[in-house]
Each structure stands twice: as structure tokens, then as C-alpha cells.
């Protein structure tokens, strides 16, 4: 018995869930297009082990998720443009603030860590070894610091202090430094310099 139909059903469900993020006018068509690709991915090479095929389908779905992100972004414009639109009254809802986005990212990361923890507990029902809480805190700290450092590295400018100083603060005072940076030092996405203007 081949597991292909079940994998296909799961993949179809995933694609449908991902397509719900798209604007309504393109949703159905995109969903149909991507669902129609699934048989080719699953039947492509019959000799391949089934888990590899499942992995291939899963990576396809991850790519679809990424694609919907890109399509949405190009349809509505960047967060900077949406902020400008909100200020002029072109769109009614205010785009989420950077602090909101940071908290949301942190929550998603927490959920991932919690799920990993849950799986670990299921596999080791006799109780968690004492390293685990430490690992959990470390994972959270690394996640948050990584987010802040990546933000500093990508920013064209930061407020009040040098980028390196903010990076050191983030590293030295793990949650507080990062929170301080996001609330005070963060400016936002770099504004492209129009040609002809001197660079700052």
C-alpha cells in the first residue's frame, strides 16, 4: 500500500490553509494551480522512498507559504508604504507596530519551543533531565538575541547610539538590552536614497 494518497490529502489541506492568506480574487486559482502540481511531485519517481517524497511535498508547501507571503507583500506594499498610507488615510487599519511584530515573533518562537518540549516529554515520560530548563532559557535567549542582532545588522541607521554599541547592549543584557533596543534604538526599514541626493 502506498502512502501517497494520505500525503497528498495532507498537502492539499496545507495548501488550502496557506492560500487563505491570499486576497480573495486570486485565492481559488492559486489553490487549484498548486494542488494540481501535487500528483507530479508524488508520482515523479516511483522508486524513491516514500518519506523522501513526503519531505519533497512538505518543502513544496513551505515554498508555497513563502510565495503567499511574497505575493501579499507585493500586493499591499511594504510596511513602510502601508504606514504612509495609514497616515494619509488611504487605508483605515493601522499596520502593526514593530513592537507588536516583535512580541508576535517571540510568541511564535515560544510555541515552537513548547511543542519541542512536549515532544521531548512524550519521548521521555520518566521526567525531564535538569539540563532542559536551562536549554529552554538558552533557546529563548538565542532566539531573541538573534532577532535583535539581525535587526541591527539590517538597519541602515539606529537611534542614539552606534550599531555596535546596541549590539553589545543586546548581547550583554539578554532580554532587557534587546527590549531597550527595539523600543528606543530601532528606526525601521532603510529608506532607499533617491539618485542625485547625497548619501547620509
Amino acid at each position, binding site marked *: 500500500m502506498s502512502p501517497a494518497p494520505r500525503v497528498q490529502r495532507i498537502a492539499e489541506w496545507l495548501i488550502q490553509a496557506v492560500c487563505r492568506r491570499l486576497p480573495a480574487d486570486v485565492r481559488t486559482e492559486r489553490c487549484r494551480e498548486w494542488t*494540481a502540481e501535487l500528483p507530479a*511531485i508524488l508520482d*515523479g519517481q516511483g522508486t524513491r522512498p516514500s518519506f523522501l517524497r513526503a519531505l519533497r511535498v512538505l518543502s513544496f508547501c*513551505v*515554498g508555497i507559504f*513563502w510565495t503567499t507571503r511574497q505575493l501579499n507583500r507585493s500586493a499591499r506594499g511594504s510596511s513602510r508604504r502601508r504606514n504612509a498610507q495609514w497616515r494619509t488615510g488611504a487605508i483605515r487599519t493601522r499596520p502593526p507596530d514593530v513592537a507588536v511584530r516583535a512580541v508576535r515573533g517571540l510568541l511564535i518562537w515560544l510555541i515552537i519551543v513548547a511543542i519541542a518540549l512536549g515532544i521531548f516529554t512524550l519521548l521521555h515520560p520518566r521526567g525531564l533531565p535538569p539540563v532542559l530548563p536551562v536549554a529552554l532559557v538558552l533557546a529563548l535567549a538565542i532566539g531573541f538575541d538573534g532577532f535583535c542582532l539581525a535587526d541591527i545588522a539590517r538597519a541602515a541607521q539606529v537611534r542614539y547610539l552606534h550599531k555596535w554599541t546596541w549590539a553589545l547592549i543586546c548581547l550583554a543584557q539578554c532580554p532587557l538590552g534587546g527590549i531597550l533596543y527595539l523600543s528606543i534604538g530601532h528606526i525601521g526599514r532603510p529608506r532607499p536614497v533617491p*539618485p542625485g541626493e547625497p548619501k547620509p
Partner: protein
Amino acid sequence: MKLTGALERVLRVMVADPSAPHYGYDLMKAAKLPSGTLYPMLARLQQDGLVDAEWEAQRQDAAGRPPRKYYRLTAEGLRVARLELAQAASGAPARRTGHGAARPAPGSTR
């Protein structure tokens, strides 16, 4: 249009047989690209009018397979793709050395 490595591979596949329709997974395999790179690129090309998409007619021998969406270069797309590929082949290395080269030089007016 900025010719990246991934775009170049897709255009090569499509220019190799301009009349042949390609569906997404077909292009993914031929250009060795993940879906997350290919589909946004196709959407952009379609928006620029360089690529056309059409739905496959339902065939009898498809064995219940849903109809696919096929992509094909438009006449304009073929012209632009050939031009870009020729430019890339004739060695314009500055265009493909990453984002550093994409910025205009200081003081230059575009």
C-alpha cells in the same frame, strides 16, 4: 528587470523551447529551484507581461489528474529573455555580483 542567478536559470529553460508550455513543478525540476523562489518570480514575470499563463484543457487520459496551469514566454518575454541572456553570456559580470553592484555609483544620475 534584474537578472539574478535563479531568474537566469528559469529563462534558460524557457528559452530553450519557447513554444513548450511548462507547469510549475516542471520548471522547478529543470531550473533546480525551490517553489518559494519560482512562484514569486513567475508572478513578477507575469505582472511584467513577459510570461503568459493558461489552464490546461481537461484531458480524457489524465486519470483524474486536475488540470494544470502552464506558463509560456510571451513574444516580448522571449525578446527580453534572449537579450538578457546574451548580455549575461557576453560577460557583464558587474550585473551579477550581488547587491553591492546594483547600487548606482555615488554622484551618478540614472
